[in-house]
């Protein structure tokens, strides 16, 4: 049977992708950030997941205002890196896992989560930056990736609790998949940041650290945090953090916090990173 072995929380700042693609990771500004992912790269190389379910949000790349799915699962065999206005990132094409993706789509829909099934979707920095941070710059990504896009652009996004419950449904769905697969789930975006208006540049390290503490130890409590608190405390784009609750919901109640890293700033954003392992 398939089994979720671990969850990874990780910011997905576009400037991090640009720093990697333009060979700037050694610069004084970027060095501390990339140092914070050295452990994680070794860890994931040792763990060798067979599939990654990657929860992220599309930033007006695949989904404009024509269609705005709340939860969209990528069931295609391949996903091309999107042109976000700079040309596509020079990263490998993302290989999907249609069999598991379709299984999760069907199982979660029957579990009363109304997923949108997507067979054609370019993937933007929201998906490719976490892959770069965890896997570096390989010729091909080391495993298939199932994109799970969450609307956090058009209000209202799904509640934290809805995300957390979807995570639980994904946990059940994966456990009922009839192949021996080691699965990881990434929750991406955040942490505190605001990209718009006179309040841009907001950072709240206290909120972020409390969020990470509760993610590990009190996810039920964290799931009850209303949207207004995310926006007030962590900035308008801090709302992306609801996606980390999908990752957390997909894990067991009790997890082992294997690693944590926090750094300010990457461009406009507080970068948070956490690795949570399920009991063996």
């Amino acid at each position, binding site marked *: 049977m398939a089994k979720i072995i671990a969850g990874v929380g990780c910011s997905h700042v576009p400037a991090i992708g640009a720093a990697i693609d333009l060979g700037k990771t050694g610069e004084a500004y970027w060095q501390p950030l990339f140092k914070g992912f050295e452990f994680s790269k070794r860890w994931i190389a040792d763990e060798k997941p067979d599939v990654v379910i990657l929860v992220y949000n599309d930033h007006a790349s695949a989904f404009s205002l024509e269609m705005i799915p709340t939860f969209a699962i990528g069931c295609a065999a391949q996903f091309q890196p999107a042109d976000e206005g700079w040309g596509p990132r020079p990263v490998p094409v993302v290989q999907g896992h249609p069999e598991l993706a379709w299984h999760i789509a069907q199982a979660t829909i029957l579990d009363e989560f109304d997923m949108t099934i997507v067979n054609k979707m370019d993937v933007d920095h929201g998906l490719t930056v976490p892959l770069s941070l965890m896997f570096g710059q390989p010729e091909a990504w080391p495993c298939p990736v199932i994109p799970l896009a969450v609307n956090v652009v058009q209000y209202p996004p799904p509640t934290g609790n809805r995300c957390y419950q979807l995570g639980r449904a994904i946990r059940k769905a994966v456990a009922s998949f009839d192949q021996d697969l080691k699965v990881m789930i990434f929750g991406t975006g955040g942490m505190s940041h605001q990209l718009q208006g006179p309040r*841009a540049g907001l950072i709240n390290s206290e909120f972020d650290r409390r969020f990470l503490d509760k993610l590990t130890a009190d996810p039920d409590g964290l799931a009850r945090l209303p949207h207004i608190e995310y926006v007030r405390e962590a900035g308008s784009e801090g709302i992306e953090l609801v996606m980390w609750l999908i990752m957390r919901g997909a894990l067991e109640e009790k997890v082992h916090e294997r690693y944590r890293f926090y750094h300010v700033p990457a461009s406009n954003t507080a970068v948070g990173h956490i690795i949570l392992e399920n009991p063996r």
Partner: protein
Amino acid sequence: MTDYSEAFKDIPGTVIFDATQSRLGYHLNMFCMALMKAEQREVFKADERTFLANFPMTEEQRQAVLDRDYNRMIALGGNIYFLAKIGATDGFSFQNLASKMTGASEDEYRDMMIKGGRPAKGNRSKSEWEHHG
């Protein structure tokens, strides 16, 4: 739903992209989507006004684009992730756009971020901005 949307209005310097903004800014944001193709970016750069005329936007929205007035574009229904495509077409990063929206120079803004960013304290409620100007 009214209470849900109203609550966000107390947050200073922030526009929530809700149903009202989305309806207001639909064509402005869809113009931004056209800039996702390299050849369209070239056509836009060659003659911005003519390119903008292809989209059924208000004249105010068109002028805000020509002026690169991002706060105005947001007030008129623009969403930052869409508007960032104008910035990318101009060769500007998110950080550059953010500095413009705060009225700081790019260097001042970058320094603020390196020093830990804009604190939440004093920036949670409109009442805090009114007291301190």
